[in-house]
């Protein structure tokens, strides 16, 4: 083990030049898609179409096709919603929070992660829209001017969700787009195709790489990062409020906000690692998305996994400590009741398996990390399932208890959301630079001047 702590690991490995970086990142956009691409795309589009079909059935025949019953009125739609919103959080964290923490290793992965955020939020947004069964009436949910003095209930967490998720989508999109402007300009200036040039010119807004502009640009980046950080925390906090403001045992507990946020980062990073392992291999980006970066992400996964475990422990302890019988029952029921199978999948995937990341060899092994991160995603889906369904299926009155079983339509729509996500990711890889060209250039070897004295107030 010959690590030298006095040297910082280079952010870009292999001493790539600026031109090489640009070439590597631009290549997928300059080349025609190959067979593997079409195979991958056809798989994801098939999943998407399956989902769309089941969705069409649901809208035509009604939500009775789903497994929702009394008392489990909230089931797959909200579980899937929370799942996808959580995945989106990793992108903003990598982009914004790691930026504020001056972690340069984010540069290779930030663009991709931000794109994943946007796609994940799109997938998430489907569920609130369809879950009423009549999405064409969704406009009535907004505070439109009317003569009945009819307003939305601004004190309801469901309304907070609307504001939070749409703000999150908008800000993430804006943040992503602002980062893309210099790259569009670079693409505009290197492409030979007239059509592509027109498109890139429009989207680059005529960016000239002027330093007088970079000054404002960097300021806006800090401001956006500074806003995106509390925003991302607030979004999953507000999602957790959907549950925690109720009086239901297993839902109403004060630790939900940071617990959900930690869980979101946990599942989000797992998804990022899952996708990036493929992307760096397929597009030859191993020097830009290095094993060091993956290892750092795995450390974050370990940390947030332990935070989730801490939350489980706290819930459990305080349930006992509180002496509230209904609360104590919830936790015994989760572990030993009819959904025990889901509970133990959740605990093993979220708490036990990530512990393997204590070992450096596993952190740096691609096959091992793939297994663990996929298990983490499974575990985090099950966590939302366990929270939502077990607490509803057995709450205060035993006479109201009932078992919930999802239907194939529920699964179909969930599958469709994965299809949508991966389709968007695959399309993204060939139409936009998956790595932020200008940011990676800025941290490459020799990119910054050597005599740079004094604090630079940017």
């Amino acid at each position: 083990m010959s690590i030298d702590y006095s040297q910082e690991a280079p952010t870009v490995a292999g001493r790539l030049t600026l031109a090489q970086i640009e070439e590597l990142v631009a290549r997928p956009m300059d080349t025609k898609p190959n067979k593997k691409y079409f195979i991958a795309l056809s798989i994801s589009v098939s999943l998407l179409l399956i989902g769309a079909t089941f969705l069409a059935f649901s809208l035509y025949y009604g939500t009775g096709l789903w497994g929702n019953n009394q008392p489990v009125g909230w089931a797959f739609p909200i579980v899937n919603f929370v799942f996808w919103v959580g995945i989106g959080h990793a992108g903003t964290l990598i982009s914004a929070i790691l930026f504020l923490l001056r972690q340069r290793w984010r540069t290779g992965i930030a663009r991709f992660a931000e794109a994943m955020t946007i796609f994940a939020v799109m997938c998430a947004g489907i569920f609130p829209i369809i879950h009423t069964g009549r999405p064409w009436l969704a406009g009535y949910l907004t505070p439109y001017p009317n003569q009945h003095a009819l307003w939305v209930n601004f004190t309801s967490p469901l309304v907070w969700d609307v504001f939070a998720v749409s703000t999150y989508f908008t800000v993430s999109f804006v943040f992503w787009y602002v980062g893309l402007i210099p790259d569009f300009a670079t693409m505009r200036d290197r492409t030979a195709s007239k059509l592509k040039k027109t498109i890139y010119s429009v989207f680059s807004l005529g960016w000239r790489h002027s330093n007088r502009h970079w000054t404002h640009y960097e300021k806006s980046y800090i401001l956006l990062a500074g806003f995106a950080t509390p925003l991302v925390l607030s979004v999953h906090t507000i999602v957790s409020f959907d549950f925690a403001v109720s009086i239901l045992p297993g839902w109403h507990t004060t630790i939900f906000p940071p617990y959900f946020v930690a869980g979101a980062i946990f599942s989000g990073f797992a998804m990022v690692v899952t996708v990036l392992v493929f992307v760096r291999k397929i597009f030859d980006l191993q020097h830009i998305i290095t094993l060091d970066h993956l290892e750092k992400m795995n450390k974050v996964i370990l940390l947030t996994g332990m935070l989730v475990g801490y939350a489980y422990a706290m819930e459990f302890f305080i349930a006992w400590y509180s002496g509230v019988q209904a609360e104590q029952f919830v936790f015994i029921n989760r572990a030993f009741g009819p959904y025990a199978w889901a509970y133990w999948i959740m605990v093993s995937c979220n708490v036990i398996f990530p512990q393997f990341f204590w070992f450096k060899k596993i952190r740096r092994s691609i096959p091992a990390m793939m297994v663990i991160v996929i298990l983490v995603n499974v575990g985090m889906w099950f966590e939302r399932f366990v929270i939502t369904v077990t607490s509803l299926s057995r709450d205060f009155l035993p006479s109201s208890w009932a078992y919930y079983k999802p239907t194939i339509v529920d699964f179909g729509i969930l599958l469709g959301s994965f299809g949508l996500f991966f389709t968007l990711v695959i399309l993204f890889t060939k139409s936009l630079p998956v790595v932020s060209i200008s940011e990676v250039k800025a941290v490459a070897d020799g990119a910054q001047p050597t005599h740079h004295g004094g604090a630079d107030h940017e």
Partner: protein
Amino acid sequence: MNSNKKIFGIAATFKTPDEIINAAKKVTNSGYVEFDVNTPYPVHGMDSAMKIKPSKLGFVTLVTGLSGAAIALLFMYWTMSVDYPLVIGGKPFFALPAFIPVTFELTVLLATVSTVIAMIALFFRLPDNKHPLHDTEYMKSVSADKYGIVIESTDAKFDEAAITDFLKKLNPLKIEIIYYPEEEAYPIFQPKFIMLLVVITLVVSGGTYLMLNKLLYITPFNWMMEQDKLNPQHSSELFSDGYGMRTPVEGTVAKGFIPYPYMGQTNPTDVLSNPFLPTKGNIELGKGKYFTYCSTCHGYFADGDSRLRGQFPNPPTLHSKRAREFSDGMIYHIITNGQNVMPSYASQITREERWAIVNYVRVLQRAKNASESDLIEMNKETGSNVTN
């Protein structure tokens, strides 16, 4: 090169970041003002080398952020605490903790979107794909991996030869003269731009019109307007007579209804007696109600001398012997039941008010037929000197 093209500026490219910093410093220190540096990414230390002041973008953020917060709070206050307050969860109408999440989100939304729009439109003055630097070799190289500096012709010290020399001394990779593009473009009045505005106008107005006047009326968007419930004055297939509006079931009474058992009977006076004492307050009440309901026919002083005098039959005076000998209950009964042409006032005057009117009528009657002792009493109290 076309020598009759107007020069925008002279550009020099460099290979390393150290060189461009050095170049920027030299250009700044030589007193040039209208110049710019172009790099594929922000180079550390360039701002101080160019002596650029820190960006003021933060002010936009601050102002718009605070506005977002204010707008959110005001809107929620108005809708939830003023326009249609509802007690939700037992919380006050202005439930500040519950308003915080939306306030926070709108603050962030407004701040970030405004910042970016302000930055692009105001600070950068983009989009601008017609800038002289576009499509030049210079632009292509600084977009990729070179660093460049451009001294513009608008600078006071601009002299093509002098600047070219000056730049040559900095050892650039290449010096290029940048010209303005051929066409003189008046950005605002370009036909393309006008067309864009027209298209946007048409699309937005057309879309709005279509949505509000057409779309909302077709299935399924009209389902809120056209509901299966029964609306007033609509027909209904459920009933044989086709009417949607039905009379109440027989025996239905109004809420708070108490039956008057003596309807129609002419003399229940033995059973009714005035439960209200003629206190000052009660008499005032009676006076008010008398003026409203009774004086129109019977006159202000119960003489029967209202403007209805002359109509057949004349409203009677209430000072007749017969009227004075009515019991309280009889007067009450007449008000409740009606008599001859006088209708029932039961639906307009509450029971308490009717008794008060009775008390007041008694006052009027006594005033018109005061006894000796009454007069003496009155003279004593008021110091007057009235005799019969």
